[in-house]
């Protein structure tokens, strides 16, 4: 394992994971580190915010400006190209070519659920062992459950593992083989011979690369469990998705993976005040329609305070349910993040700055 530290940002979709990953990366780069951030499903605006034409499958330098001691690179996961690279590394040129031409291979690499997650982990491994980075920051694919990130690689391995399919397509004897063959006849009947031909060819080809892939996936699994690899749970202040986050945390702990803390986005700041006396606001009436305006105005501080307190209470509850954990509350930024400066507005509230005391 190289010296690179790894930070994995997990969470359900729509919580601002991609932006948080980019802001974390910027914070560490400004602290003088060589940082690379792997994004999964970035909006075009993130590339703009980072000052890049477009995000690519290879790391591109983000201009940090004069006097920067660290460096920041960003890349976007390209599932297909990452699969192709993996296959090219482990197979003879002839096998690789035949595999890439197989329709089933193309479907597996681009459409099979879990493929995205597996390739993210694969790319993460590649970056972590490269030796060019002090820190690798990873955004995770949008998933219904945050645990999908860990389960999908297993699922893909299960599917690629030839032994599972050997029973279906291989020979052998005995009662079990007979039962498998009758299953095969059903499968064949539901799928049709064309599909079976492509799939059989696929698994014959995969047979050659599967020892390599199995070895690699063991190295990837070891990386995910290395203490240098830490996990952040990103959530949204208004929709904390508590059960999902806690389920994920259980999974992390069961696997003895390092949980680093909660990053809660779009938190309402506690209004500073003091505010005008409500009676004074009502008495200021410039005309008859003022009463309704005054109702709105005097309710504003209380509404903001209630929302701010609700956000804090939800975060406290999350921390309590988690059995204690550090939490960073990141304030809401109106108008969105459109530049490196915009991203920089988030960094004072994120690691490596100290957590929020609740």
């Amino acid at each position, binding site marked *: 394992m190289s010296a690179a530290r790894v930070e994995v940002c997990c969470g*359900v*979709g*729509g*919580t601002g994971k991609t932006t948080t990953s980019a802001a974390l990366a910027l914070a560490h780069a400004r602290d003088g580190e060589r940082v690379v951030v792997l994004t999964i499903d970035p*909006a*075009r605006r993130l590339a703009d915010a980072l000052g890049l034409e477009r995000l690519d499958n290879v790391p591109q330098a983000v201009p940090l400006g004069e006097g920067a001691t660290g460096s920041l690179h960003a890349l976007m996961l390209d599932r297909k190209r990452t699969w192709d690279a993996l296959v090219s590394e482990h197979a003879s040129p002839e096998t690789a070519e035949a595999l890439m031409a197989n*329709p*089933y291979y*193309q*479907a*597996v690499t681009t*459409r*099979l*659920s879990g493929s995205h997650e597996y390739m993210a982990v694969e790319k993460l491994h590649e970056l972590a062992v490269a030796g060019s980075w002090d820190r690798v920051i990873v955004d995770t694919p*949008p*998933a*219904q*459950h945050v645990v999908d990130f860990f389960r999908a690689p297993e699922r893909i391995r*299960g*599917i690629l593992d030839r032994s*599972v*399919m050997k029973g*279906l397509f291989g020979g052998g004897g005995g009662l079990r083989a007979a*039962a*498998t063959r009758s*299953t*095969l006849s*059903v*499968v064949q*009947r*539901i*799928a*049709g*011979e*064309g*599909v079976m031909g492509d*799939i059989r060819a696929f698994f014959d080809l995969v047979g050659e690369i599967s020892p390599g892939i199995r070895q690699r996936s063991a190295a990837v699994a070891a990386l995910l469990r290395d203490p240098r690899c830490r996990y952040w749970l990103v959530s*949204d202040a208004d*929709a904390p998705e508590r059960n999902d986050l806690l389920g994920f945390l259980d999974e992390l702990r069961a696997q003895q993976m390092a949980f680093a803390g909660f990053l809660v986005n779009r938190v309402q700041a506690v*209004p*500073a005040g*003091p*505010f*005008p*006396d409500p009676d*004074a*606001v009502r008495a*200021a009436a*410039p005309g008859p*329609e*003022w009463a309704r*305006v005054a109702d*709105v*105005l005097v309710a*504003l*501080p209380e509404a*903001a305070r209630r929302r701010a307190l609700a956000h804090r209470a939800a975060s406290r509850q999350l921390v309590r349910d988690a059995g204690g954990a550090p939490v960073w509350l990141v304030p809401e930024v*109106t*108008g*969105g993040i459109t530049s490196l400066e915009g991203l920089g507005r988030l960094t004072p509230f994120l690691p490596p700055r100290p957590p929020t005391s609740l």
Partner: protein
Amino acid sequence: MSLLDKRLVVVTGKGGVGRTTCAAAIAVAAAKRGKRACVVELSGMGSVPPLFGLEGRSFTFRRATEGVYVWSLTVEECLDDFGRRKLKLPSLMRKLFQTRATRTFVDAIPGLHDLLQLGKLENLINEPLPDDPRFDLFVVDAPATGHGLTLLSSARSMSDVSKAGPFHDLAQIIGAFLEDGNTTGVAVVTLPEDLPVSESLELMAELRAMGLPPSAILANKRVPPPLEGLMPLSTVDEVIRPLPHGAQLLDLLGMAHRRAEAQTEALDRLKAEAGAVPVVSLPSLDGVPVLPKALGPLLAEAL
């Protein structure tokens, strides 16, 4: 043709926009029009029943409220359905579907889960058997992965893998079923915010390219400007600024106003780009016990 008059509505959109809530609200809206509607979950997550205050998942369809039912479809039952209706296999043979080897095989085929689940709905709509439940409308909450495109493109991805045979035939049937605008509608859920609007415009372009133009766009969680229609901000500023601590109050007002203005701009852009597709703005509601029941009537009115 109104979204509510279709037989199947697929609700798409990114995670966190309230897609599931909107799917449930569409069912409530259809029920308001006197229809029998069923919200179908394909993920087995069980996130629909709690929206109606129900506990647990519903692996058989279950009444949620007047005219609205919830149902979580499993891949197993859809595979069995496929074997029974399309392949006409006897039940003894379908038992083999339940073996681990078959499951591994089914899991290994991209898009097959989606296709089998859509296949079951297609059967219920186009070729119902006497013992099938009858619904006027099925509302499918598409999984967040790929904003729901993975589900809608499952027929196409199967055609890539399978050039002939039963899966190929199923893919053809589902492809035609989804593209039939009289039966199937696609609803796009988004937020009235800059980034989500840009993303949903991209999603709409992709849907059109797939031959599945959206029938409605739902912009969820709209917060109107605090003084909308009451008084110009400049007048309020003149009155409040001289008061002690008036500036702090105006700061709060300004922030709330800017947030709402950004939403208005995003909504206007969405409407301008949507052309003839109706854009329905749904309010952000706090403290409502059953959100779909509050939003459903608004949808019934707008669609």
